[in-house]
């Protein structure tokens, strides 16, 4: 009776896919909590697309893809900050320009490759079932690195996210924490590329945290709920993709999206309504 559950576990590729996607889900869900609180959802989308030219260049040079992806993502993150300051433009405007520009560069370079390359195509949409034992070790190391940095700096990241002015005035290195956090996002994206692909990474980052935000007003519970979704959704998604023979990355994202929609529907009962909305007449006074 448990056949549908236990049968796929007989395959090593399925075991590796399960381990990889759970790690990816967990890392993205934790990083995503800080991302949505900083209003960085769009930034995450941009940095993942910006990784594409890096992956293509790494492929052309026969180097490791994660180095190319990380360099391209981090360079774009730094460029966004630099261009915004230099040009006096809004951050999201610059993100929109560089995001599309970098992705176009990736497609341009991709189109120069004479023969169709399937494994490169896999980076766009993910190929978690193709993850090898070596990939899995690299993934584990990167995941541990990201989670360790957040475990050490959780309170500094929280304070500088919540009130950057107050945090900086009392001596926290807010600017360095900002850059560090951008680097964390870039690494989380690199970790996720093989599992879900460039186009869907942003869902892994944003959706669990956004779902958790619908359900709680406490930061600890936000992290816990988001992490739980980040672990459960890939497991469910992989099984569904095995049973239905569907694309694994897309199925994982669809499971997360479904959980999000359930939370939105459940949230109408009032328990999760933004308390601020109830108080707006009172708090409107200081702003006028």
């Amino acid at each position: 009776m448990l056949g549908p559950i236990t049968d796929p576990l007989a395959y090593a590729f399925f075991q590796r896919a399960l381990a990889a996607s759970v790690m990816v889900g967990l890392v993205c869900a934790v990083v995503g909590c800080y991302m949505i609180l900083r209003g960085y959802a769009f930034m995450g989308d941009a940095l993942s697309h910006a990784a594409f030219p890096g992956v293509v260049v790494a492929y052309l040079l026969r180097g490791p893809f994660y180095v190319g992806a990380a360099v391209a993502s981090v360079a774009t993150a730094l460029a966004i900050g630099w261009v915004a300051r230099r040009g006096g433009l809004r951050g999201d405007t610059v993100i929109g320009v560089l995001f599309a520009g970098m992705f176009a560069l990736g497609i341009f370079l991709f189109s120069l490759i004479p023969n169709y390359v399937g494994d490169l195509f896999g980076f766009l949409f993910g190929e978690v079932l193709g993850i090898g034992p070596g990939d899995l070790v690299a993934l584990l190391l990167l995941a541990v690195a990201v989670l360790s940095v957040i475990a050490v700096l959780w309170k500094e990241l929280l304070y500088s996210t919540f009130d950057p002015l107050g945090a900086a005035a009392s001596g926290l290195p807010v600017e360095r924490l900002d850059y560090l956090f951008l680097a964390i996002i870039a690494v989380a994206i690199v970790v996720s590329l093989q599992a879900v692909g460039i186009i869907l990474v942003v869902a892994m980052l944003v959706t669990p945290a956004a779902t958790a935000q619908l359900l709680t007003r406490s930061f600890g519970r936000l992290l816990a709920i988001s992490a739980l979704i980040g672990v459960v959704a890939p497991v469910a998604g992989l099984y569904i993709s095995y049973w239905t023979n569907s694309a694994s990355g897309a199925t994982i994202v669809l499971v997360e999206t479904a959980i999000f929609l359930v939370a939105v529907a459940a949230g109408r009962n009032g328990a999760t309504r933004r308390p601020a909305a109830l108080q707006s007449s009172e708090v409107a006074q200081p702003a006028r």
Partner: protein
Amino acid sequence: MSNGDMNAGEAVGVRGVWAGYDGRPALEDVTLDLKRGALVAIFGPNGGGKTTLLKLIANLIQPWRGEVSVLGAPAGEEARRVAYVPQAELVDWSFPVSVWDVAMMGRYPALGVLRRPVAADREAVGAALEQVGMASQRNAQIGALSGGQRRRAFLARAIAADPELYLLDEPVTGVDLTTQEDLMELLTNETNRGRTVIATTHDLAAAAEHFSTVVALNHRVIAVGRSELVLDPDVLSRTYGGHMLVLQDRAVILDDAHHHDTESGGEHHYHEEGAKRR
């Protein structure tokens, strides 16, 4: 007075400072000395540089020219002994933190990276919440609070940090009278213990009544002195210029209570939806 005496009694020294945003000066040649233990209100019109001056002291922006010293050192070096509370509208009130979490943040800088809050930190936070009258609301998410309670929670964060210098941007703007009285009593107590408080304010009545020193600021320092200055028609007319009417010996300030013209660089202002619609 010798130089040594000056440094010992000086909380903040601003010398020949020019500062602003995007090439537009907000402060022009500002020089100011504020003594330790002073309860200082900075008042003036919108865009007159009140917040800019506070941010310079907090080392959140750098002067174009001139020097800022804080607690006897260049601004920023004694940051752990400074607590800064931003304007209420710079805070994202939907952020998933409780009153307790916010007050605990005051302890983070001194804790350093590797240490987690211990019993002494929890005691300090508990005491700070008690002082501001928010102990019973400690588990409330900050968005569920009234305007006055929000100011109390942020003041608790500042108190929990046990700072030498409080920098408060519009601490009494838009709060109810009880909260205003309570907060001012707390701040007065802090200055009686030798701490220094510098606040920007729109509320001239509050400035006159509660603060020991006032600074009239409109790009330049118009006047510095005892709190009666805010009632001086000459100082008022020079500070507010065309934004003031004198009616039967009484000055009426024609000033938008919304205390900024444009968002300064890189800031997002979290106006409540209700405020926008009106």
